């Protein structure tokens, strides 16, 4: 069974702090995605990680992929309130010709 597990599922943190969200998946895949979703909105693409050891950074967010460990991380540096959202990781098990399998999401609240 294809599984994608995120942790934590809920995270409350203060502005200026660093934290990491973890995404484990059950079966080999070379494609992993991170999306952001604001309340009542659709999903916004953040990162696409296509190979082992891939690291991508955008502003205060950095994502990495370890295909051998079947693990991706989303690291938040010096968090700001605007980063409050739900973050999803998703795995493409079909090499691009398939639907994505999503984790349950990490609900992130950043307090001043």
């Amino acid at each position: 069974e294809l599984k994608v597990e995120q942790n934590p599922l809920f995270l409350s943190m203060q502005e200026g702090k660093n934290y990491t969200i973890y995404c484990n998946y059950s079966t080999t895949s070379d494609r992993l995605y991170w999306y952001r979703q604001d309340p009542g909105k659709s999903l916004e693409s953040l990162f696409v990680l296509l190979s082992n050891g891939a690291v991508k950074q955008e502003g205060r967010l950095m994502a990495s992929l370890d295909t051998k460990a079947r693990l991706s991380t989303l690291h938040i540096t010096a968090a700001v309130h605007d980063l409050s959202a739900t973050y999803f990781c998703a795995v493409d098990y079909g090499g691009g010709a398939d639907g994505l399998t999503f984790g349950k999401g990490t609900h992130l609240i950043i307090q001043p």
Partner: protein
Amino acid sequence: DAGVTQSPTHLIKTRGQQVTLRCSPKSGHDTVSWYQQALGQGPQFIFQYYEEEERQRGNFPDRFSGHQFPNYSSELNVNALLLGDSALYLCASSLTAGGSDTQYFGPGTRLTVL
């Protein structure tokens, strides 16, 4: 460059009715995927259309069906609606030719079944 569009934005139906949701992919994209997102959950894959055919299907009953048109737009049909079908339905488009990377999501259709 228009992104993924969906219609309608909101829809209210009663149990047993049928519903059709529509999606226009991002310009240049040829593949459309549909997802169901229940409140507080991650999206679940329903099916994907490419070249006007269903290419892959998730774990959803036959009450869920779809169609892709020659202009790559797509419809999702749900028959015999159940209360549990209440959710946000998301359409995502991507490009298969030349290798598919990111799926871009539309704004979604919020379906409420009473």
